[in-house]
């Protein structure tokens, strides 16, 4: 009986044509991309803790990491999550102007984060070849900045497409997919921030 009920739901019946609905192939594709990129961050952080476990020197060797740029970064990135979530929920209601505005806010926060991180690099007392900790510090943060910058470019493309009228309430996937990516960027930053900036402050030396 169950089978019969299921058969009844099948074709022929009116089906939307094109990139409609939530679980589009693009959504699955983004989910997979996030999985594999998250794995790279996991392996980077694994490398960090592994080298920390192998050293008899203080870790980080140059003392506690500065928080004056990374803490504000964390705060604004958390705000950007709300902004992009809001954009994604507005687009489903067809509020295109709101979608625009909140996507733009997200992109601007992304740019601000990249700038703040550049200041942070400038303030660090070491270079990428100073030692194993320094090498990993720059590898992890630079890799994250690269992801954030990619996210900003993706947001810019979606803002452009929204402006050209390609994003509508029924065809909102571009926004949903980019929002998903942006959640990932912020989530990995939290992991990076805790690992590189916070843990040295709360672990005994």
């Amino acid at each position, binding site marked *: 009986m169950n*089978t019969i009920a*299921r058969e009844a*739901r*099948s*074709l*022929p*019946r*009116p*089906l*939307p*044509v*094109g*990139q*409609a*609905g939530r*679980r*589009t*192939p693009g959504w*699955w*594709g983004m989910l*997979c*991309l996030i*999985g*594999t*990129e998250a*794995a*790279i961050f996991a*392996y*980077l952080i*694994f*490398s960090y803790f*592994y*080298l920390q476990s*192998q*050293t008899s*020197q203080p870790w980080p*060797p140059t003392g506690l990491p500065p928080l004056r740029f990374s803490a504000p970064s964390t705060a604004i990135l958390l705000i950007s999550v709300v902004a992009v979530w809001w954009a994604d929920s507005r687009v489903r209601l067809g509020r295109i102007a709101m979608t625009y505005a909140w996507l733009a806010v997200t992109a601007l926060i992304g740019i601000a984060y990249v700038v703040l991180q550049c200041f942070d690099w400038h303030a660090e007392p070491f270079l*990428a*070849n*100073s*030692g*194993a*900790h*320094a*090498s*990993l510090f*720059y*590898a992890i943060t630079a890799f994250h900045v690269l992801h954030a910058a990619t996210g900003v*470019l993706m947001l810019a*493309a979606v803002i452009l*497409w929204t402006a*050209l*009228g*390609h*994003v*509508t309430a*029924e*065809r909102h996937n*571009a926004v949903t997919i980019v929002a998903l990516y942006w959640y990932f960027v912020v989530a990995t930053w939290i992991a990076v921030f805790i690992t590189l900036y916070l843990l040295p402050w709360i672990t005994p030396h």
Partner: protein
Amino acid sequence: MAANPTYRTPVIATPDEALRHKLESIWSDPHNLHGWFGTTDHKKIGKRYLVTAFVFLVAGGVEALGMRLQLAQPNEHLLSPGLYNQFFSMHGMTMIFLYALPILSGFSNYLWPLILGTRDMAFPRLNAFTYWVFVLAGIFLYIGFWNAKGTDVGWFNYVPLANRTYDPDWNVDIYSLGMIFLGISTTAGAVNFIATMFRTRAPGMSISRVPIMIWGTLVANVGILFAVPAVSLDFMLLWLDRRFGTQFFNTSAGGRPLLWQHLFWIFGHPWVYAIVLPAMSIVSQGLPVYCRRPLVAHSAVVLATILTMVLGFGVWVHHMFATGLPVIAMGYFAAASFVIVIPSAVSVFAWVATIWTGRPVFTTAFKFFAAEIVLFVIGGVSGFMTASVPLDLQLTDTYFVVAHIHYVLIGINVFPVVGGIYHWFPKMTGRMMSERLGRWNFWLMFIGFNLGFFPMHISGLEGMPRRIYTYPADMGWGDLNLVTTIGSFVFAVGVLLFVINVVRSRFVGEKAPPNPWDAPTLEWATESPAPSYNFAVTPRVASLHPLWEERLGESGRSTLDEGPVLDHEHEMPGTTGLDAEPDVILKMPSLSLAPLAMALLIAGTFVGLLMAMWWVAAGCMLAMIPALLWWLWPRHETGWAVRA
């Protein structure tokens, strides 16, 4: 201005000549350069993968034969020590990265949409992109070898030997960048398979009706998604150390050489499963056809496949038993390595039971599949032996390990692959392969392989280290090595016969009917060779064996010759992840040069990085932005902008 999504109710019909003609004109590529370079047809891409990967197999095989000639007798001088190092490094790299996975991607690309009852992969352009990146990365990895500067520190490339201090030439740089380059292809392919699995199965193919071949490839590709980043990162860190003086692996600055090994094997062991699980699923799919019955314990085999992959992420340290790790760590990893035998054995017993309770037809494909079971057991037992720490300390870096890896990789990859070609060749080309030639092909490969590789167990137990370019006569390894060399040449003749059979059958083979083996799955429901649109009407699946329902007494009946017609441009049904109920008509992209352009830009980036021409690399990377915009631009034909 984009309209709301258009809704459409597909017409239900029985395919006729007019419909086939219309679909052919929609789906077939033009016969010109644009059609050749821009095709997104999964069948063409699949065949290209198969041919290209086989060319790499032959290249790696020639390298192996060179080494076997050098080792046939003590104190030979055919290859210099330096050249010998390059031969074994290039051989390992070629076979493991450029042959073993890409050949399976070839099968999957060709077969997935046919087995799933649909018309293409979820991302046809990404599919073309993965092929171009694979070819270009393969060429990139070989550029050093042409002027005798191939990578020469082994395929697992241990530091500190791979550091600039000890290997200052650009061979290791090529290997490092080339592996990151190739990883893009592998990862993009994995994304494509996963999205295809969860979005494009034929209506009615719920999760319990998914054929075993799909499971093997799916599980491997989920593994790839999480394993490949480890090796890409590892090679990236090494390249930064070599090029910019970072300190990841430098002991004097707090780095650790063992970090290389950890990251490499965190990737390396799951990779073994990524290159055997799809091949095992070829056996699971093909063997029952020749036993005239369904696979025994289908669900158990699926679950065992998943379990193998999961456990495969927790055994990497068994490659590092001799590096002086804490005893507790070795104990854990030895135990985990023993445990993984259990899910592997589930497949073996299921195959044996399938043969035992079936009525086997001794075709060439059957012989290759059955031989795989034997070789898997031998390779499995030698793997089980080296999972034991004390024994591994004795056997590591000897020919015993060389024997083990070849029983695993040739036994569980090459044998199923060749059997799979015999099995699916009629579908791919519309012609049958010669069974007479197939008999010779099989026995030469089987006897040659065992003659060549079994004695390696003994030379390993007698203490012959791997990777030595020669050995003194008084070690007493000469006879064993001569047998190994003879066996490897017999094996090579078998492979040559296979190539001859493929080429010959391609042109003069007997014409194949749609389902020459009377097999149960959907790829056999369409003509041979499969038409460009795969299925004229959307099939509806009601069981695991759509073509065997009547004789198996299944309750459901799949409908294959009547169904919804999707003939407005490139279209196929999108279905839900678990139940496979249609919920959208997907608009598929067709001919596009964007994938090739992107692949070339990535190649340009890597060449720029290799030659330290930073402006080339930066320029190519900047050019990727417009290229991607072009690729992803919302178009009518991809369903982002719909005309009413």
